Each structure stands twice: as structure tokens, then as C-alpha cells.
């Protein structure tokens, strides 16, 4: 079982997110994270899905996605040729006994404090999933009060583009 990221370029039509997510649901494929965003082209949105599965599942997902009418491009973002990023906001208990430890962790992970109150502080951390998970594991014993993550976005390095019509 491998974790991989699929980028999907879709026409910006009503219900397109439902069409895509319903396909995963209907065929029993599990999604680890899903993000939707605007792209360089107003008529299109980009859906990034990260999931875990074997090669046959990955192939099947890509082929089923390509059958959807409003889907223009589907591409597996290969790890070694792509940049993956995720952002997390983590609210921690702010107490004199843990504060210093949190601040050192924030410093080491090159993350930042985005909110500070007498009882709580909030950390913003960006990076690859593994980095975020390492940070979470580190601060978990200190008391995570609330957390949210954006899910993975990914883009290929260099001159590869999701939209096959794009060129330099």
C-alpha cells in the first residue's frame, strides 16, 4: 500500500466536486485528503486528492476519473518529481510549564505562532505531510485542544504541467 497524490483539472461546473467525490464513494475508494482550488484559468478548478492504495487501485481511480464528463486532466503527481505541501493550524494549551517546549518545537520546525492568549496558543505549520505529522506527534503530549489541516496540494517540478495544453 502506497500513498499517492492525484491532481485533477475539472471544468468549473456546478456539482463537479460531487461528481468526483461520489465516484470515490460509489466504487469504495478511500480518500485521505481532498482539496479544491482556483487555478490559473478561470474556467477550471483543481482538485487534489491524496489516498492510500496499491497500483491497481490507483490505475482504476485514474481511469474512472477520466470517464467523468467535466474532468479535463488527471495526473498522478509522482513524489520524486513533485512538490507537496499541506498547512495545519494547531491550538495548544498555553501554560507556563509547556510554553517553552512549544516555542522550541515551533522554532525547530520553522513554523510560527499565529495566535496567543492567556490560555491557548495557535501554531501554523506548513510542509510535507511527514513534517506536519512529526510536529503533531511532538506536541501531542502537551495537549492539542483543536486542529485543522488543509490536506495536500501538489504541483510538478519544472516544465511538466497538469493542463496538457499549457506550455512555456
Amino acid at each position, binding site marked *: 500500500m502506497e500513498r499517492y497524490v492525484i491532481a485533477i483539472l475539472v471544468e468549473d461546473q*456546478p456539482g463537479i466536486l460531487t461528481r468526483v467525490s461520489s465516484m470515490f464513494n460509489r466504487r469504495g475508494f478511500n480518500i485521505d485528503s481532498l482539496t479544491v482550488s482556483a487555478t490559473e484559468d478561470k474556467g477550471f478548478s483543481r482538485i487534489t486528492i491524496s489516498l492510500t492504495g496499491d497500483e491497481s487501485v490507483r490505475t482504476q481511480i485514474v*481511469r*474512472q476519473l477520466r470517464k467523468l464528463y467535466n474532468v479535463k486532466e488527471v495526473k498522478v503527481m509522482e513524489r520524486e518529481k513533485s512538490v507537496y505541501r499541506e498547512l495545519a493550524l494547531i491550538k495548544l494549551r498555553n501554560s507556563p510549564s509547556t510554553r517553552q517546549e512549544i516555542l522550541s518545537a515551533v522554532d525547530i520546525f520553522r513554523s510560527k505562532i499565529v495566535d496567543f492568549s492567556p490560555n491557548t496558543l495557535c501554531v501554523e505549520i506548513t510542509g510535507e505531510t511527514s513534517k506536519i505529522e512529526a510536529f503533531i506527534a511532538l506536541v501531542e503530549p502537551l495537549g492539542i485542544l483543536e486542529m485543522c489541516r488543509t490536506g495536500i496540494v501538489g504541483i510538478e517540478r519544472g516544465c511538466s504541467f497538469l493542463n496538457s495544453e499549457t506550455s512555456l
Partner: protein
Amino acid sequence: MILSGADIVVETLIEQGVKTVFGYPGGQVINLYDSIYTRRDRIEHVLTAHEQGASHAADGYARASGEVGVVIATSGPGATNLVTGIATAHLDSIPLVAITGNVPNSLIGKDSFQEVDITGITLPITKHNFLVKNVEKLADTIREAFVIAKSGRPGPVLVDIPKDVQVAKCPYQPCPVVEKKPLKSAKENQLALAAKMITESEKPYIYYGGGVISADASTEMIALADKIDAPIGCTMMGLSAIPTNHPRFLGMEGMHGHYASSVGQDEADLIITIGARFSDRATGNVAKYARRAKIIHIDGDRAELCKNINADLGISGDIKDALTRLIDLVMETKHDAWMSRIEELKLTEAAQFRKVTATDRLTPYALITETAKHTAADTPVVTDVGQHQMWVAQFYPFRKNRTFISSGGLGTMGFGLGAAIGAAKATGKRTVLFTGDGSFGMNLNELATVTAENLPVTIVIMNNHVLGMVRQWQTLFFQQHYSNTDLHCRKTDFMKLADAFGLPGYRISDLSELSSVMDKAFAEDGPVLVECLIDQDEFVLPMLPPGGCIEDIITERGDA
């Protein structure tokens, strides 16, 4: 010219070559029905008794003709009544355009009277669907619906049109009939690889499905079989693509397939799969399916490759084109040992068959064979779902492509009568419907349509007073717990039913009456109903138990 949305819908249908639509009026399609009324000399509308019947009729029309079937329904319950029909067409890849009315844009999302989110409901059972919010987009959306329905692997498309869009006006320009988007051609190196695998094979077996019918590729498939000296078996959806009596044809394989077809497939060293999707009903236990064979899988839909079975070689592309090129790449071969083994399996099957059918009872076999004496090569033969469907699939001598019309993937009981209406409309020929008392009970209201249209439909009801297929499973796997499958308590008198709906009815209760009553029934001009009383414990055999493999095949009843 400036037309209303409703007029545009009907003009676009006419422009796309639609001659007949099936449907049912209602509050949110009154405008559409008015446009149909004013164009009734250019397009025919068949009013059914229920929207579900209309959806099956449009489906049957498409299956019999190869054209896109069209069904119209109003919003809310009208639209939801189409759902089973749309799902049936989706699972069997039948081109269908369903048009529904909806509440005006201003009332959408307010739980208005007869409002449902039909595009949401049908999302997983359509190839695509549209909610048209703007009259300017209406004509092009309907054209696009036809393109999607008939291109590639065909399927149903739904177009939902709010009432205000039907009322609004805009310019309309007629367009030519839309073309199918061509499928990509199979890759040459893959075909070469297939040819190599075929050359190396000593026991090749061609296994095809409904994809051969929609690609109109049976001639090419038979030519390939002749050149490489291979037997041909099929899925239920492939039936009628080649004549049943073709010397290479072993019949349907799988759960209720022919013995020689299923065993032949198990013994083969190469299975050349064409336009089939390895449904669980066809493969049984996938771990043990085709253990001795390599598999080549040729399909128009790339997503079918490696979905249910990991083929050794998957080839996606236009089936007709791929087969034509493959024929040129393979060498002419003879497989005498293999073909004589196949002959041996056929003899075993014939012996089993004689044992099961040698009886003086009114058996389904006797009934189907007698009916076939009265039909022509191009008679559409429609079924419902259950034991009778399997018996027809096993015993009816098909002679011409697109003459077997049956719900395969979804297995929709109640499909038959509507589909028979559609097939009769599409072909203008006498159509035979084989049904059971269970299936027929689901949508028998469509008898009203059959008589209203005076359609030449011969309805043959195999009445065993039970839900036979489920009963068979209960006998075999559930210790004869006949839970809710005994219909003897129903007091339905099918002769009175026929009379009430205004068509002649005949009853056959004994083998001795079979021939003479069928003679009379087929002498009728319009619709006719024939009830045949058969034994409640007739089995569909052979049977591969669900999830089983060829060693588990049941060829006769233990207690018989």
C-alpha cells in the same frame, strides 16, 4: 426563429432524428407536452401507464434499434419513477436521453411542490446529467446529451429543465444530427502482442459480451474465431450477436451458463475477451476463474481493463477496428485436439440436457421451443428477470443481432413489458415477451399501453405461483425456508386480467395443449397474453453457486 424553451426541446429532438418518445405528462412539463401536441405529425409520443414503464420502453427501443431512446417525465415523482429505468440502462450501457421538467429556477431549493434534486439522485446512474438553467443553452445541451449517450461506451444522460426555461424564448437554429465521438484506435504493438499470444495458444476461447453488439462487431469476431479455430462463449448481454446454432458457439457461460461453455472456458489456455466486463455472475470466484488461461481483454472502455479481473493483456479502443486489424495479424491455425475436446463437452452437455428435459410436463424448455416455432429471425425477444430469463437465455434459438432484450447488469424485475413496448415500436414487428408471474406483477399496468397502442406483443407468462429464482436458492442454500416467495395466496386470474385490459388471453396448463394454443395465440393480430402453468420446482440448471467455481457446478437436482 424565436421559440420557447419547450418548443426548442421538441425541435431539437426532431432535428436529432427522434421519431418516437415515451413519457408521461405532469405539472412541470405541460409546456413541453403542448409543444409535442403542436408537432404531433412530426414526432410520436407514447403515453405509458407509469414513468417507469416509459423508461423501460425507451430502453427497449434503444436496444432493439441501436438508436438513442428518449423518455420524458415531470418533476418530483415523475422524475424519481424513472430512476430504476435509468439505472437499468446504465448497467447495460444503453444509450438513453431522459428529459425531466423541474420547478422554476426561483423555486429550486425551497422544497417546492413536486421538487426533487433529480440530477443529484441520478448522478451515479447516468453517464452525465445536466440541469439547464438558461434557455440559451437548451438546444446545445440536448445535442450534447445525445453525443454523450451514444459515444464510446453508450449510456443514459438526463437533462433536467426548470419550467421557466421551458417558457422563456430565444432564437433556435436547427443543426444536423450529432456524430458519435470516435473511440481511439487500439495500439498496434498491443495488437501484435495479442497476435503472439494467440499464436502460442493451443486452447484459445473467445469470450464476448454486450460490447460486441454495441460495436456491431460480430462479423469480425466470427471471422477471428474461424481463422484461429476457437470456440465462442458469451455473457448474457452478448446473446443474439451470433446465431445460437453457429457451430463455434457454446452459448452463455457463468452462473447459469451452458456446461460446455463454462467448462470450455475453464479448460482454455487463452481467453480472448471482447466487450465484456467480467461480472461476478459471469466469473464466479475470481481467484479460481480462468486458472489455466492467460487473458486478453479488448474493450471500448479503458476503465474496464483490470477492474474485475487482471488481464495479461488489456487493449482499449474501438472493438470493430481492433478485431479487423487483429484478424490480419494472426496466422490461420487449426486446433484439432482442442476442438474435439469442445465437441466432447457438447456431448456431455447434451446428455445432461436430455435427462433434465425428457419429461411429459409442460416444461419451460418445451414452451420456449414451441414459441420459437412461431417467431421470425428478427422477432425481438424480451424477458423480465428471474428463472424464465435464464431459461430463455439458455434455450431460445437466436438468429439475428439485437433480438435478445433483457436487463442484465441491474436485473430489473418489471423491465419486460415496458421494454417489449419499446422494441415493438422500434421494429414495428411482433415482439415476444417472456415473463414470470413475479416480474409481470411488478409493472403489469403497462398492459394499458399495449392495448392503447394496439402493439403486436405476445406476452408469455411462465406462471409457477412462486418467485422461482429466489425459491431455487432457498431450496439449495436456505434449507427450504420459502420466505415470502410463495405466491399461491395471490388470487390473480390472468385471463380476467387480460380481459379487463382489453386483450385476448389464453391459458396453457398441460403439455398436450401447448401447440394448439400457441397456434391460436400467434394467429392474433394485436397484443395477446398467454399464461403457461409450470411446476413451482423447476430449476435453472446448470448452476454455479454464487462465489463458486467450475468444480461446484450443479447439473441436476439431487432430489430429482
